[in-house]
């Protein structure tokens, strides 16, 4: 598709100003008065420009439904060196488990999460809420009206996902898997390229 350079430049300037907020395709379409098809072509050209320009430090990524200008991964180490004395938020294994359950099962109640883990999850849920990764997504009908939890856009952003459909598929436990834990682990490792420092048996 033929793309107007002027509009690509305009798009880049919008994305630059939006910074970590990013802009959705829909917002970009409204701002530049382009069709969706045109917009996607423009985004494609921008991405291409960044990849082709050997001396470019930037690239374009889709996280949580919004396109964002970001620095290229190859400069991550240089940038991280600057951030030495301010470490990023770390998340505990427990919180991560709860987050995974919510991400795949949403909307889901605390009791369901507790059942799956065999342990109470109140603490991790509070932590995840205060980290802006999950939120209330309504209440269950009926007695108790239990809170239903779901993930936020910030979750998608922080975990580098374009949308929830971007989540890697959960492993199935259907008949073929039965009795073949080795295959299970191999598939898992292939899928996520675990580096093998004890990756298999996460003990």
């Amino acid at each position, binding site marked *: 598709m033929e793309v107007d350079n002027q509009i690509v430049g305009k798009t880049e300037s919008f994305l*630059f100003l*939006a*910074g*970590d*907020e990013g802009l959705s395709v829909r917002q970009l379409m409204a701002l530049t008065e382009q069709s969706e098809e045109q917009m996607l072509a423009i985004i494609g050209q921008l991405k291409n420009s960044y990849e082709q320009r050997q001396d470019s430090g930037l*690239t374009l*990524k889709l*996280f949580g439904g919004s396109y*964002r*200008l*970001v*620095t*290229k*991964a190859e400069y*991550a180490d240089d940038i991280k060196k*600057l*951030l030495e*004395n*301010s470490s*990023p*938020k770390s*998340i505990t*294994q*427990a919180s*991560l*488990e709860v*987050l*995974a*359950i919510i*991400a*795949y099962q949403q909307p889901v109640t605390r009791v369901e999460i507790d059942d*799956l*883990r*065999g*342990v*109470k999850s109140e603490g991790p849920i509070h932590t995840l*809420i205060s*980290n*802006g990764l999950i*939120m209330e997504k309504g209440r269950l009908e009926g007695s108790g009206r239990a809170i239903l939890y779901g993930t*936020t*856009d*910030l979750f998608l*952003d*922080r*975990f*580098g*996902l374009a949308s929830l459909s971007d*989540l*890697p598929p*959960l*492993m199935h*436990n259907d008949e073929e898997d*039965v009795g073949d*834990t080795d295959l299970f682990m191999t598939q*898992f490792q292939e899928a*996520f390229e*675990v580096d093998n420092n004890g990756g298999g*048996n996460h*003990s």
Partner: protein
Amino acid sequence: MSYKVRLEVFEGPLDLLLHLINRLEIDIYDIPMAELTQQYIEHLHAMRVLRLDELSEYLVLAATLLEIKSKMLLPIHEGEAFDDEIEYEIEDDPRDELVARLIEYRKYKDAAISLQQSAEERSNHFTKEPGDLSVFGEVDVTDQADPLNVFDLIGAFQKMIERKRLKTPLTASIAKSEISVSERMDEIMSFLEKEGGRCSFYTLFERGDTASLVVTFLSLLELMKCNDITVEQNNNFADLTVMFRQEGV
């Protein structure tokens, strides 16, 4: 038999059980209950230091394990001849429910690992705060059409913390080692010019780490000494105003 006292943190009884299954290299679909139960209970002994409410969850599972173990000890097979009839075994194996729970739990435990990996990948890309749009014009926002909730607030707050983390080292800490009093003096003078010749004392100290605040302070003293600026206070406790020194004053 001896066991090592380990005080690893497990994310609950199922996690501990999975750990034991991995360590004992036993088949999750054909668990030797006697061995697993013994190991599990030994671990509980070692973990007694845990908080009581956590321990109770572990004890519930211990009871389940013992129940399964005892069921398996009972002679449920009437005729030895049907031993290898698979259907029969699958339907009645008392371990089935436990195995199903373990498998289900393991799915999410694995998913958590893959999530962590994608978060790590994501953390290699940095972005900036949104540009200051006020230079392009003045608009009153907060559209009423957009319903907000507390989770929007929390999200905003988290983003702010991340921005601050990114921003501080790039501007402030580099400035620390780099900026000299004479440079800061120039900066203050051009800032004053931009502000129409006067500004609040405090605006000069709005950002930077301790070292750069000290440099700013020294620069102000130096500028006063050179009679370039003067500092005024209208009355007790009022804000200090920094301004160009008027000619002939």
